[in-house]
């Protein structure tokens, strides 16, 4: 693990301090040690993807970075180069949870501007700005629709839009495309990459799909089985903009082999532990 981290550090320009740094982070829920001795660092503008067996603590990690859960004492958490408590990150990180969690009584536009409204933005101006962004999110003409009138893919895009409109440097996306069919999913992936290139934000992205992790990421983090920590940090030196044809290239396959081997080892471990 340490060699992998060193490798990443070498790949990054030394001048830029990491946006997010964690080391020795642990989180215990009663008898369950969800996360233990976790270390990671994310550079500004980087797109980092996170894979790992189910229940290994990925969402727990996000809850800590979003400021919702305090890590157990002893770990180090640094944001923008400054050590801080998790709760100080409330309102400073743009978080998209595993479920879309749209509010059923708000239409598309009002769901999209929820975060800005909470920040105290002028509602009319926020709406106008969101309205102008609808086409970019493939939601043109749907501003007056309510969540129960939308397809799963559209709901995800509204949730993504809400996350993007909360303009913070770091975006946490927890399996944003988990519920989508393969076709919609690959469309959404390319669309997200365009959006990321356009808006230049830093993204931490959880997924169960190894193809997705490699296709999107500058770097793939593989997590160990519970208690979760970072097992492997694999840079993805594939050219951008990325094309779906990449998925069948030998470079891609080699990376995929490496990630899959690491995951398999962990999956076996957690399987043996539960058996």
């Amino acid at each position, binding site marked *: 693990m340490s060699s992998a981290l060193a490798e990443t550090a070498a790949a990054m320009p030394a001048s830029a301090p990491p946006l997010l740094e964690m080391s020795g982070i642990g989180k215990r829920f009663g008898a369950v040690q969800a996360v233990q001795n976790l270390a990671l660092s994310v550079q500004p503008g980087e797109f980092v993807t996170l894979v790992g067996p189910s229940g290994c603590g990925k969402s727990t990690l996000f*809850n800590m970075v*979003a*400021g*919702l859960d305090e890590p157990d004492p002893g770990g180090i958490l640094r944001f923008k180069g400054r050590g801080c408590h998790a709760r100080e990150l*409330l*309102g400073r*990180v743009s*978080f998209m*949870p595993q*479920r879309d*969690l749209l*509010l*059923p*009584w708000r239409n598309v536009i009002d769901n999209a501007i*929820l*975060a800005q*409204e*909470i*920040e105290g933005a002028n509602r009319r101006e926020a709406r106008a700005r969101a309205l102008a962004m609808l086409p970019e999110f493939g939601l043109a003409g749907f501003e007056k629709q*309510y*969540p*129960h009138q939308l397809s799963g893919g559209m709901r995800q895009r509204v949730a993504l839009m809400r996350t993007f409109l*909360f303009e913070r440097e770091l975006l946490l996306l927890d399996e944003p495309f988990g519920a989508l069919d393969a076709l919609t999913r690959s469309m959404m992936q390319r669309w997200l990459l365009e959006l990321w290139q356009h808006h230049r934000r830093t993204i931490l992205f959880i997924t169960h799909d190894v193809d997705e992790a490699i296709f999107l990421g500058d770097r793939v983090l593989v997590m160990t089985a519970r208690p979760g920590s970072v097992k492997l940090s694999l840079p993805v030196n594939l050219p951008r903009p990325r094309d779906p044809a990449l998925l069948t290239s030998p470079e891609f396959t080699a990376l995929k082999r490496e990630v899959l081997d690491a995951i398999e080892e962990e999956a076996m471990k957690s399987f043996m532990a539960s058996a």
Partner: protein
Amino acid sequence: MSRATQRGLLGAVLLLGSWEALARGLALPAYTLPAISDIILATWQHRSLLASAGWYTLAEALLGYAIGCTAGITLATLLILLPPARRVVMPAMLAINAVPVAAWSPLVLLWLGIGMASKVAMVALAVGFTIFLSALAGFDRQDRRAADLLRSFGAGPIALLFRLRLPAALPLIAAGMRVATVRSLIVAIVTEMLGAQGGLGWIIYQAVVQIDFVQVWSAILVASVLSLSFFGLITWLEQRIIFWR
């Protein structure tokens, strides 16, 4: 006309038809069951008396209903914002609520007199409890993950209350308000029967004393029309406002 409406109308016609046939066929005396046609005729003949009594009762019920709803929702909201207060207040509230509403009426009549105020207070008490309990249940039903999401956007307790908890509680609050419509008229009428200067309950009481059973039924007819309309209005509003369920 929808099928449900057609069936409802058919049911009503059948019920009223057999009522009429029964009363006329068996020549039942008025104190057992007057014919429905007689009741309607009598209602029409006494329409101005019944209308003013109906208004009187409706005014009490609506005023009490409004006060009860406001108080119930406000109290539930305060307890949600101050969880420690909830543990103190809840046992007392449940104890008061365990006493049947009607049992309070002699006291309330004693305190507030036999005018409108006592009826309004009784309705407010009955409605207030219903709404308070359903609002509290609604607030407790909030989704923790949605609350976490709003907190990640920097929302404090007040923003959470108005943007999440209150709207999320609305379906249950509205269900309570729907049930409370009928309750408000019942409580107003029952309290009037115990002592009043007007209203449908007072008319019923007077009619019983004068052995005028058709008049009793007329008042009951007016009361049911009022309470059904009130119920219908709130149900209609509920479907309009809580469209997302």
